[in-house]
């Protein structure tokens, strides 16, 4: 059995995921990019688990962990996105910069007071 189709698929997934994370402005699409990255990692874990015939199947176990964590993460992330939409009316990450340092050079500490 050859590894290269699986590795190629993983590379494509990572590339697509990175593009989604870095280039998209819509928060939901950024989340989808993150999911693609996670699934690329899952694919590699399963692939090498099969390739090395690990007796304990640690690659598969790890994948289950990642899937579980990803589900939880998506739950939190979608809640944040929902709140963002309710407050602002859009989910554009380039304009949602409230948590950044103020541009005018003030410390920001006074603002919170």
């Amino acid at each position: 059995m050859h590894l290269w189709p699986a590795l190629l698929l993983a590379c494509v997934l990572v590339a697509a995921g990175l593009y989604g994370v870095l280039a998209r402005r819509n928060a939901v699409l950024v989340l989808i990019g993150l999911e693609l990255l996670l699934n690329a990692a899952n694919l590699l874990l399963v692939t090498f688990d099969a390739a090395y015939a690990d007796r304990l199947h640690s690659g598969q176990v790890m994948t289950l962990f990642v899937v579980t964590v990803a589900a939880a993460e998506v739950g939190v992330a979608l809640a944040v996105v929902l709140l963002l939409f309710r407050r602002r009316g859009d989910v554009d990450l380039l304009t949602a910069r409230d948590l950044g340092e103020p541009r005018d050079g003030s410390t920001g500490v006074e603002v919170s007071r």
Partner: protein
Amino acid sequence: MTALASTASDVGDIAWAARFVVVLPALAALAGAVVPRASRTAISALGVGGALAALLAALTELAGTGGGGVGGVALLGPAPTGAGTIELSLRADRLSAVVAVMVCVVALAVQVYSVAYQCDDRRYRSFASVVSLFTAAMLIVVQADDLLLLLIGWEVMGLCSYLLIGHDSERSAARHAAVKAFLVTRTGDIGFVLGIVTLLAAAGTSSISRLLRPETLEQLSTAQVTAASLLLIAGVVGKSAQLPLQTWLPDAMEGPTPVSALIHAATMVAAGGYVMARLLPVLAEAPAARAVLAVIASASMLAAALAALAQSDLKRVLAWSTISQVAYLLAGIAVAPHSLGAAPAVMQLLSHAAFKSLLFLCAGALAYRVHTTAMGRVPSGGPSLAGSWARSPMVSVLLTLGLAALAGIPPLSGFWSKEAVLGAAEATALDGGVDGAGSLVWAGWLVLLVGLVTGFVTAAYATRAWLLVVPSPADVPAERSGGDLVTDDSPPAALLPSPPRRDPLLHLPVPPAMSWTLLALAVPTVLAGLLLIGPVVPGEIHLSSVTGALATTLALAGVAAAGAAEHLAGQRLSGRPGVAGAAGRPASAVRGDPVLVLPPRVRAWCAGGFGFDALHRALVVRPTASLARTVTVGDHDVVDAYPRAGAVVARWLGAALRLTQTGRTTGYLGALAVGAVVVALAGVGLR
């Protein structure tokens, strides 16, 4: 341990008596801290009971030490240290028993007296328990057979004096006086601690019994003994308020009057003299130190008497007289020939305790209603003690007795003890070479002459105090009571605001707790001379008829001089318009303060304590304060600079890091991706 000399059956009893003498007041002090603050009866019962129980124990000890004494009575058990064992033991002999009885009598008198005197005091509980602690500390000093135990008692006394002088801590004058007393005595204590360390290092033992054995003393070199004695004398000068560390004592009058009686008569001030008497064999090996002590004592004796002459406050007169009388005590130790030992000094210690506690408590009783201790006419027309005879004749009589004893009028206690000291000085001066104290002949003459002169001045200031306090100005109309006595060059009487009308409160009788205490203290004041000629005092007393006659003549001359000076001052005042003429009285009825015959500048110099306060300020206080300022500056600008620099650097780093916080999620994620690649490459490369 060794029993000095005593039958075996007695030793146990005396040892237990000595332990009880020390422990009972300490227990009373401890219990005083836990009684409910509201129950004044319980508080005063504890204070009085503790002192009374200690007095009974001390009397038992005195009865048991007839044939000698016992050393090394275990109190806390031995304390092992790296370099040797410290016994922390007590000692019961004639000297400690006699002084312990005296301390307990005065402490009891003070406790009973303050039940009435401090009746308005909200902090009576702490007062009574600190007085008990003070008594316990003094009794530790008295009973200690161990230099370190003695030092413990000595230091606890310093603390208690601070607490009691500053008892009325609402007044800033009391707080300042307390701090001053603490710091000045502590300055002397530096020498005291070093002296004890020197003795410990030289003799190799902390036990006083072993230290005072002739064979131990022979091992010490003259240099060691002289150094130790001089250092101990420094501590004694501080505690006993001798020149040049006397300035704290007059200021300590800010404390309540019973505290003054305690400090002056029984505890703090007397402790210095007692320690010198206890360590007399060590001192005897160091003639140079004795000469220094004789000079210090002579200077203090005369200077303090002159200062007392010019005070306008009765308590301050008594404070200066304490310095003068304790100087007699120390002079007696400095020049006592070997054959007499510490007996003259101990006699002076006992009689001084009797008449000084009587005097202070009388002053308190007179001031109880008047709320002042000013004598004569106060320039602002305020209240004064003048005319005490009309208010409380009994206290006035007792005050007269105390002043007469202070002046050394023959049958009273002060006369005998002063004679004992002067007799010792005379013995050393005339045939000092006999028992090896030849180098002290000049010191003997010095003490003898200064003592005689001081006796004259003492009689003069005692008479002046009496004239300004007791006589009732009967020839004056009622509303002008006290108006005849002028204490200084104040404006004529007609221009002064009229004195306050007679307050009926002023004529209430003195509370019985106070009057009975005074009566009880008058007994030793009068009779102490007879008791002390007996075998009670360790050692012998040498009385000389020539010196005695001379001293008595001088004392009576002092009384007469004060009377004449009063008349003279009155004549001077009556020469002014508006003093006598306005009232239409004969000039002889006008009485002036006797000290007015002295030139004003001399008077001010004496009243201000000879500028020692200014000297201390220039020599000690200012350098210390500027050193403290330097240290503060160094701490702030050098040591603190490093932590402050850390804060500045952290702030800069934070400002740099803040630049990365853009709020652009994409940027964060990009940085994360780059970081992940870097970590992955590093992981592969470092494998």
